[in-house]
């Protein structure tokens, strides 16, 4: 990766404001910021803030998505009524919604978590309601033959059978929640988080391009850590499934 990076830079003779050297990006972490702190510490604090917002949003969106999926699986009628709105919610650009949510809910971490949840719940709803329906007919017939209650059928068959679907969705949601939190930090008024760092770095880009690249790198790392965390939990929970991909 690093070799490719530098090769591209050399080959096209790109100046540092288009593509800085890797060592310039690395050096940026050790530069002293305005407050006297080193940039790696500033980044770490903001990344932690964003990660926390993402995590809360991820949990919030996961639960919302799950509740919607179960509701839809129980009632075709409700699904027909509500699904168009759920789909419509995802066709509106998040960049347009984020400022409104911040205006409604304030500039605290909560509005960011809500925006993260907004991106998180949809994959969970879509995948999980599919999983809840995709149960093997004979597995259901077995439950019927054993005169199981609908509660037992849900908890002992439908829910565990759809866990692989849930985790596929959570992998997507894990990275989406980080994007959501960062986008939520972009509007004016926010004070912490990688979104704020990115906006500031973009303003001073001509002067210090490496700063923005460093911020992008850190944001990507948060997303990757989230994704890997979900994958690790997935291995533990649905290790019985043959369709679980490698971590």
């Amino acid at each position, binding site marked *: 990766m690093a070799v490719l990076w530098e090769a591209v830079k050399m080959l096209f003779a790109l100046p540092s404001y288009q593509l800085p050297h890797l060592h310039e990006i690395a050096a940026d972490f050790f530069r002293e910021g305005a407050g006297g702190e080193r940039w790696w510490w500033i980044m770490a604090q903001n990344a932690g803030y964003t990660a926390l917002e993402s995590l809360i949003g991820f949990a919030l969106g996961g639960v919302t998505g799950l509740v919607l999926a179960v509701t839809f699986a129980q009632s075709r009628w409700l699904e027909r009524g509500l699904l168009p709105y759920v789909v419509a919610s995802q066709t509106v650009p998040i960049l347009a919604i984020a400022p409104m949510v911040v205006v409604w809910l304030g500039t605290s971490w909560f509005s960011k978590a809500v925006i993260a949840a907004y991106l998180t719940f949809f994959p969970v709803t879509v995948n999980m309601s599919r999983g809840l329906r995709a149960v093997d007919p004979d597995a259901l017939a077995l*439950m*019927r*033959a054993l005169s199981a209650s609908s509660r037992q059928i849900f908890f002992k068959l439908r829910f565990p059978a759809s866990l692989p679907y849930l985790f596929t969705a959570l992998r997507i949601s894990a990275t989406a929640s980080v994007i959501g939190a960062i986008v939520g930090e972009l509007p004016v008024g926010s004070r912490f988080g990688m979104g704020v760092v990115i906006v500031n770095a973009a303003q001073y880009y001509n002067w210090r391009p490496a700063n923005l690249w460093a911020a992008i790198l850190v944001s990507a790392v948060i997303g990757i850590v989230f994704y890997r965390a979900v994958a690790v939990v997935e291995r533990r929970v649905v290790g*019985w499934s043959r369709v679980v991909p490698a971590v």
Partner: protein
Amino acid sequence: MGAPIIELADIAKTFESRAGATEALRAVSLTVEAGEFVSIIGPSGCGKSSLLRIVGNLVEPTSGVARVNGKSARQARLDRDYGIVFQTPVLYEWRTALDNVQLPLELAGRARGEREQRSRALLRLVGLDEFAGHHPWQLSGGMQQRVSIARALALNPSILLMDEPFGALDEMTRERLNQELLQVCAETAATVLFVTHSIAEAVFLSTRIVVMSPRPGRIERVVKVDLPRPRVNKTRALPRFFELVTEVRQSLREDSGVAEDLRSGGADSP
């Protein structure tokens, strides 16, 4: 033999779909008595699986009455009077072999200690006690089907419904499981209704064989199997075994292409 356990009176079943109505069963009447092992054999699509599912109240007949253990089929299902084995093992992938066998006991609200003890005993019965902690994907097809038989026996039902349980297995595994099944049945004294498309399997296992016609399925003939018991591997070499195989084969409708196909594919003896 004994009291009637399964009573089918004038059963008919028509499946409605967008493509039109399909008449699967017509005027099927059959009585199975306690302790019998009755096989249903017939060409693909003759409704033999539907018939089994009507007995299990998993499918409602279009007309006719199904009574099980002297009650309606529905009541018998609610009372968990029968155990069922499908063509595929239908094991829950997230459960170990032991936990799969426990499922019926859990649903019936049995105490944990009893569940565990009973499931272990059943796994021993089917020769899988060493595999209690294995997940389904770690077991061969034959082992999976044995787990599913153990599960069917969990609540000690007086009736076993088996829908081509060994159809997907290779010949050697099938013959071994046939043998094991008879031992299990002898130990549990269950009445068995067994759907198959293998003539040799039906002759080896059954006290009676119900031969069905192509769709719409009707009972073509009932062949009584008078082979000595217990049935052992040597039974397959008896002249009477071959006579019965031939008799069943001839009972399968001559004029049906499906039956022709069945005779060449399903018959596994000379």
